[in-house]
């Protein structure tokens, strides 16, 4: 409506432009009629697995289960998710998403392997807890210390990657979002979310706007988001390079704030080719260390571990990324190729490339193999270990996720349309990281150890989608 009013005024003042404006108006009407034609076609063709088309209110339920497990008895996670999406007749969109997950298993504690057995002390989950865990590389025992607190100890055999087998957590999260056309904007909306674990909570909020133009071939979007996270580790928050002796700390929690935006351009390039280009900027400030992660401090000659200290990461981190996605439809196949470049103020640079090929074998059944490549450089403060007698760096972490490595993910997806409006799909994946486990400057016994504690994981994602009135 606003567009038509504006066009009328312009036409009255600038008669020379009237021809082109009329042409534009005609094009808009053709487009509207065309959209309606598409809508009725899809509405009536219930055997197809397409959506309801423009101007038709409907709802969608998504339910999914993610099962994830790492090799060598490391992390196992089970994550059920459900979402309700309500599409209004006037392009209103309401989404509610609920997620739960249960994570357990062993996780590397950050110490390096050694040619001797290593014993680690960490605060128990609560002062009164009395559970113990055991595993191939050593069990753990509860040790009572002064002050009515408890320390959990576990021993790792010589040559084994030091892992804490007492890792266990549950998470519950919800996200709520709403958007609709608003004035000149094609879509305008906001969302909130909250996620809670026993030792971590996260509150998020976002505002987003999108404008579609160029005969619906181009969409510009801007999303702003903020996050407030609180880390409340068992045993309190350890200070930077504090001795990892299992002692409880007086500071119970620390927080961080995050602000970011994503600027997006979506362009229909040809009848077969859809492209998306995103630029994202993100800034975090506050406590970003992993409160459970330690570093080995080793003897400068023998490389033998002498003691263990908690890691320390900078309080500020800003990152930028450019993401480029392409979908190309050719006959029964749909190719998706995406690339991402990421850089941050911690010195990490990464490239990601992903390709998938969907092949519709029948009108109901499709397969989609995929391959993902990822490579990152190390953070400036990444250290495999610290050397006794040397000055402590300002920041240090031995978290492999901040080190240099490459990962490859092999995946395959199978999808089956149970009816025109329901679909069941399964995606399986194998994820493997490779890094340098034998740095040239390794000291003493460390030269004979694999210092890279990378991950190999398998996952399966089972999803169900149902569109209904």
């Amino acid at each position: 409506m606003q567009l038509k009013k504006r066009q009328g005024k312009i036409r009255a003042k600038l008669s020379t432009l009237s021809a082109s404006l009329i042409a534009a108006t005609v094009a808009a009407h053709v487009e509207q009629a065309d959209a309606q034609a598409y809508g009725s076609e899809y509405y009536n063709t219930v055997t197809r697995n397409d959506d309801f088309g423009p101007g038709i209110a409907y709802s969608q339920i998504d339910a999914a289960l993610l099962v994830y497990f790492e090799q060598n008895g490391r992390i196992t996670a089970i994550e059920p998710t459900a979402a309700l999406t309500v599409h209004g007749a006037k392009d209103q969109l309401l989404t509610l998403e609920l997620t739960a997950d249960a994570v357990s298993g062993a996780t590397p504690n950050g110490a390096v392997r050694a040619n001797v057995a290593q014993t680690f002390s960490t605060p128990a989950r609560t002062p009164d807890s009395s559970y113990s865990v055991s595993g191939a590389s050593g069990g753990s025992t509860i040790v009572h210390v002064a002050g009515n607190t408890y320390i959990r100890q576990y021993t790792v055999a010589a040559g084994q990657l030091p892992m804490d087998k007492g890792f266990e957590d549950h998470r519950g999260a919800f996200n709520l979002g709403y958007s609709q056309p608003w004035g000149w904007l094609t879509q305008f909306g906001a969302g909130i979310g909250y996620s809670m674990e026993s030792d971590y909570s996260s509150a998020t909020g976002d505002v987003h706007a999108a404008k579609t133009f160029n005969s619906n071939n181009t969409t510009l979007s801007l999303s702003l988001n903020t996050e407030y996270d609180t880390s409340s580790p068992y045993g309190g928050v350890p200070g930077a390079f504090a001795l990892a002796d299992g002692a409880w700390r007086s500071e119970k929690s620390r927080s961080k704030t995050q602000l970011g935006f994503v600027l997006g351009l979506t362009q229909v390039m040809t009848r077969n080719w859809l492209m998306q280009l995103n630029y994202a900027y993100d800034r975090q400030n506050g406590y970003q260390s992993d409160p459970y992660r330690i570093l080995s401090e080793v003897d400068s000659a023998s490389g033998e571990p002498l003691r263990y200290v908690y890691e320390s990461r900078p309080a500020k981190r800003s990152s930028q990324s450019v993401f480029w996605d392409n979908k190309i439809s050719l006959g029964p196949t749909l190719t998706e190729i995406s690339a991402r470049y990421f850089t941050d103020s911690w010195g990490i640079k990464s490239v990601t490339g992903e390709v998938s090929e969907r092949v519709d074998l029948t009108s109901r059944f499709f397969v989609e193999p995929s391959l993902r490549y990822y490579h990152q450089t190390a953070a400036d403060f990444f250290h495999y270990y610290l050397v006794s007698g040397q000055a402590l760096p300002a920041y240090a972490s031995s978290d492999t996720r901040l080190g240099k490595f490459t990962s490859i993910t092999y995946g395959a997806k199978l999808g089956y349309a149970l009816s025109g409006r329901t679909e069941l799909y399964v995606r399986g994946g194998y994820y493997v990281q490779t890094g340098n486990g034998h740095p040239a400057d390794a000291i003493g016994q460390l030269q004979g150890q694999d210092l890279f504690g990378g991950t190999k994981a398998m996952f399966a994602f089972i999803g169900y989608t149902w569109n209904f009135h």
Partner: protein
Amino acid sequence: MSNFAKRTGLRIAACLVAATSLTSCTTFGPEPWEKDLMAKKPMQIDAYAFEKAAADHIFFSKEASSGGRGFAGGGCGCN
């Protein structure tokens, strides 16, 4: 300013406005009646958003990079 200069200026301005307007009438990309493939579900940018978010969550918890497709971060203490 002479009348000639004024007329020339107005003509140039009119041409520029007309050119801009005409440009806006031509579309970059397919015409509306060529959107059959774009209307298919798997061609939507947010198709299988659920699955992509789950995959991003896995990668985010194992790698130092996040975001790109959407926001950075993951609302969990996994990294």
